[in-house]
Each structure stands twice: as structure tokens, then as C-alpha cells.
């Protein structure tokens, strides 16, 4: 995939560019806002990674200008600010996701993957399937190998999110933000508890494990073929 990184901090830029290349992506780098806007507008990219604070033109302005010209390339904002307003501002300017520096590279990768495989809005699916696990969104039922599984509403939400992101790694913060609306880091093992409960219901007693852990990064749901 072809990705544009607009980042003025050379250290951070090197870290991201190296990581992207290792994972098989092609990446261009712009060191300031003007070059970034020029590249983003003239070339075709699969995703943008834009730092919020840039010399010259800042990230917010770049996003606003791109969106105003009808460019809807998926974009992630990077920022050193942990402020609560910053996220809202970034998303309002047209960014699709937001990441606070410093971050684990796996986090950026997981979010990029989630962005680029976002299903088209028009696609309405009422039944989700992963292997022999089936979720009916209308009837709110879950079955595996024809066996009905009872889920609490919170567990259903969690499973639905995993089903929609089949095969992709979901990080802890992605779960917190997207499933529970938690924009902070809880001091208790909320994520682990819910994952283990969900796992006990959908995997325990079945032939294969669908919900898998990537140590230190997150979880993904996939049927082994």
C-alpha cells in the first residue's frame, strides 16, 4: 500500500518509515505542511499519516483543505498533545483516526489496517460469519456449530466489532475507544476481563480457537483454515 507521512520530526519519521517498509508498504515522506499538502493533492495514496504540529501549514489545515477539495483518502492524525479537545478537533477537521505520540508501531499499523479496510457505507450486512461462528445482528443471536450462545449486550458489542474486523489485529486502545467509548486508560483490567469472558463463551468447548491474542499488541478474530 502507498502511504504518505507528513511529519517534521526526523526521528519519529524514520521510526515510522522503517516500520512501514518492513511491513511491505511504500511510503513517501514530507517534512513540512506545504510539501505534505502538495503531495497529498497531486499523488494517489491509500492513506495519510499527518502530524498535527507542522512548520508552515499545520495538520488541521492540511486535512481541512484536502477534505474541502473532495479528497477522502483515509487519514490518521499524530499528536503529542493528549488533550481531550485535540481528538475532537482532529476528527472534525476530517481525520479518520487519531494517535497520541509516543505510540507502539503495532498500534499505528493496526489503526492503518482498520482504516484502509473500512467497508463501504452502502454495504449493509445483517449476518456476520467467521468460520463456524455466526452473529445475526437483527435477531441479536450468536451461534457456533449450530449451538446457540448467550451473550450480554456488552459482550455482543465486543464480538460484533471483532467480526467486522475479521482477521485484523485490534489493539487494546482500539477496543476501549470503539467498543466502550473509553477515551482514557482504565486502571483495572477491563479489556482482559471482557476478552476472557467472551472467549469462554465463543471458544471454550469448541474444536478451534477463534479469538487470538497477539502478545503486547492486541487480539484478532480469525478462523484457522
Amino acid at each position, binding site marked *: 500500500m502507498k502511504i504518505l507521512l507528513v511529519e517534521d520530526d526526523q526521528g519519529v519519521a524514520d521510526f515510522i518509515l522503517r516500520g512501514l517498509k518492513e511491513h511491505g508498504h511504500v511510503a513517501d515522506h514530507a517534512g513540512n505542511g506545504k510539501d505534505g499538502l502538495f503531495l497529498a493533492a497531486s499523488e494517489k495514496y491509500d492513506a495519510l499519516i499527518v502530524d498535527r504540529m507542522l512548520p508552515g501549514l499545520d495538520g488541521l489545515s492540511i486535512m481541512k483543505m484536502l477534505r474541502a477539495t473532495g479528497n477522502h483518502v483515509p487519514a490518521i492524525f499524530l499528536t503529542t*498533545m493528549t488533550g*481531550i479537545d485535540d481528538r475532537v478537533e482532529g476528527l472534525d477537521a476530517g481525520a479518520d483516526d487519531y494517535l497520541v505520540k509516543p505510540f507502539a508501531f503495532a498500534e499505528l499499523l493496526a489503526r492503518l489496517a482498520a482504516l484502509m479496510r473500512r467497508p463501504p457505507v452502502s454495504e449493509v450486512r445483517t449476518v456476520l460469519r467467521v468460520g463456524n461462528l455466526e452473529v445475526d445482528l437483527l435477531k441479536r443471536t450468536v451461534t457456533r456449530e449450530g449451538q446457540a450462545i448467550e451473550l450480554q449486550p456488552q459482550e455482543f458489542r465486543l464480538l460484533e466489532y471483532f467480526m467486522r474486523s475479521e482477521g485484523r489485529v485490534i489493539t487494546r486502545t482500539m477496543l476501549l475507544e470503539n467498543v466502550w467509548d*473509553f477515551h482514557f486508560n*482504565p*486502571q483495572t483490567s477491563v479489556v482482559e*476481563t471482557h476478552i476472557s469472558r467472551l472467549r469462554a463463551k465463543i471458544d471454550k468447548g469448541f474444536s478451534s480457537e477463534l479469538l487470538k491474542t497477539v502478545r503486547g499488541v492486541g487480539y484478532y478474530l480469525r478462523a484457522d483454515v
Partner: protein
Amino acid sequence: MFRLLKTTSFRLTILYTTVFAICFAALLFITYWTVTAALRDQIQGKVDSDLQALAAEATSDGTASIVRDINEQLQYTGETIGYYYLIDSHGRKLAGNLDHFAMKDGWQEIALSAAILPKSGREIDADHVLWGRGAHLSDGSFLFVGQDGFRVLLVQETILESFAWSMGIAFLLAVLAGLLVSQGFLRRIDAINETSSAIMEGHMKERIPIRGASDEIDRLSMNLNLLFDNNQLLLDSLKQVTTNIAHDLRSPLSRLRQGLEEIRIHSRSVESYEAAIDSAIVESDQLLETFSALLRIAQIESGSRRTGFRSVNLTELFGRVVNIYRPVAEDAGKDLKESLAENVIVQGDSELLLQMMANLIENAIRHTPPEAKLAVFLDAGISGPVVAVTDTGPGIPAEYHTKVFERFYRLDVSRSTPGDGLGLSLVAAVAALHGINISLQDNNPGLRIVLRFPK
């Protein structure tokens, strides 16, 4: 002295005095004119009646009879008040104490100069003026009756003089009073200034003396003293926070450093290096987390989030948080229940209210022994929604009830239990932003945190 003249109260005094002086001058003007007019009328009336009586007598009894009257009159009253002049139709003077007088009918006001007086050796000064009326009698003779207007002029002079004196004294008194009042005022303002400077120079305990008169200066002083008290509190808490931050960030940094040094000296395998780096990353992540939490609290306290307030359904929001945490509580062997009134709506920031409730529940989960009973209550309330988060744990002694909201404050002095000591600070910040009143109460046993939303 020079400063006194510049004070507001002195300037006010001068202003009032000037207004007073203008009123006084108006009074003077009115008095002067009315008194003068009254005296003139009196003199004119007297002259006219005298003239009429003499004219009538001359017509009935002849001119000769009034000559006698005039001479009697002059003898009786002396020569200084009444003036008469009678000449016959041939121009011969018959009676009177005037000379060389123009024979004009009607009212006349003439300077009483030596020219019209017979040589009597009397000294006449400029203040004397002759007021009178002349008339031709029926036999062709001319009669003039007049009076000296000196009395009127004297009264006028007296009025002016007494007004000038009293005005001068009043003005002097006003200025003196102004100076005195200003000096008292200035002394009190000086006290405020001195206290402020002392505080600025670092004598934080100084306060403005209160006179006890409960006047506006006392009220101002009291308010300023309150302001200084608040400032002191803030400074103290800032000092506390700084110390706490230093302490709390020092220990993980030391751990981090120690771990790195340890591995530098003793490790030889790739696995042990990786393990050491992993734990170093975890340690630094925790440090970053603490910084984020601090920044977040500071940002909430700045109040900028208030502009984004929307309707939030507390029943739905808190119900969701409780459902998310119930499994966590159960895994810790605790029971989390809720009792939420239907459709309680407030204006607020749902993201922050969610984190507030999450922090309160996490706090209850983390600081209670196994088998504790935790509960969240939401009541619509008469004076605004009321939320209570209760547990059956060890509770918090009353003397620490305000302390626990301070950044990094922890009841566990050894800091061996997990937690960053910022959870309740964030709760306090979110509550303050929403105008929520927080109180800690004894749950008998345990802790009951009560949040009262504004109406």
C-alpha cells in the same frame, strides 16, 4: 501632603465644596436683591406719602404753611435723613436743606454732592445718594422731597461682607475636612497597598487589618483577604502537587534506570535483553500515562470543555459503565449493583462523565477487600440529580475527605497498592466543570461518595 491633594476623597470634597459655593452665591444674589428692593420700596413709599401730604396741605392752606412744616421736620429729624427743597414760581427758595436744584418732576436719584448742599461744612462721602421725587404745586412753586439712600447701600455692603466671611470660613472648613477624611482614607488604602506588597514579596501570611466598621473599605479588605486565602490554598496545593509529582515520577524512573543498569551488567543473552527492554517500555508507558492524566486534569480544569456541553442521559451512561465493570468486579470477587432512576438527563460532557463514573467504580473495586458490595445509585432528585457510589470497604477517615481529591494523594503512604493517585483528582475536576458537589460520607461500613448535580 501633595499625595493628599490627589486622593479621590479630597477631589470629591473640592467638588462638593464648589457645588456648595455655587448654591451659596445664588442665595446671596437672591437675598441681596430682595432686601435692596424692599428697602427702596420703603424709602420710595415714605417719600411719596410725605410729598403727597405736603402738596395737599399747600393746596388747602397755602405754600406758607408747608414752609413751616418743612422747617419743623428738618429741625425735628436732623439734617441727615430727610431732604426738602421748596421754591416759589419766581425761583426763590422758600425752605429746605438743598441748593441749586434742577426743577424736574418725577423720581430722581442723584449723588449727594457738595454742589446741591448748602454750605454746612458737612463731609459727604460717595456712599451717600439722594433719592426723591419732585413736583410742581398748584400755585406754580416746586417741591422736592428726598431721603438719603445711604441705609440701603449700607445694608447691601453688610450683606456682601457677611456672605464673604461665611463663605470663606465654610470653604476653609470644607478643605480641612476633606484633607482629614482623605488622610484617614489614604491611611487605609496604604494598609491595603502595604499588605499587597508584603504578600508579593513573599510574606504570604500577611492580611489587611479590618477596622470592624463594615464599611466599603472593610468589605473590600475582607474580600481581598479571602482572595489572599484562596491564593494561599492554591499555592499550598501547587507545592504539594509539585512535591508529589517529583516523588511519584522519581520512583518509576529510578526503577527504570536500575533495571537498565542491571541488564547492562549481568545479561548476556538476547532473551534477557528483550525482556529487560519490554519491562523498560512498560515502565515508561506508565510514566507517560501519568503525564497524560495530569495534562487531562489540567485541561478539564481550564473549563474549555464547557462549550461542548450537550444533553446526556445519565441513566443510560451510568448503566453502560456499570455493565462494563460488573465482570471486572465479579472477577475480583465483588458484587456491583445499580439502582438508576429512569431517563435522568443533564447538560454535560458525556465522555468526561463516563470517565468520572468509571474512575469512581474502579476506585471502589481497587480499594475494597474481596466480597465487598459495591453499588451505584442515581436519583432524579428535587434539586438536581443525585448520584451515589457506595462500597463496604474500609472507607476513608473524615480527616482525609478533602485530601483524597488532591493530585497524587494516596491514603496508602507506602504506595504499594496499584494506582496513580490521580483518579479522584480527575473526578473532582470533572465535577467542578459540571458544577457537581461531591461529598464523602460514611457508608457504615465503607465509603459513600455522593455527587449532587446542579438543577
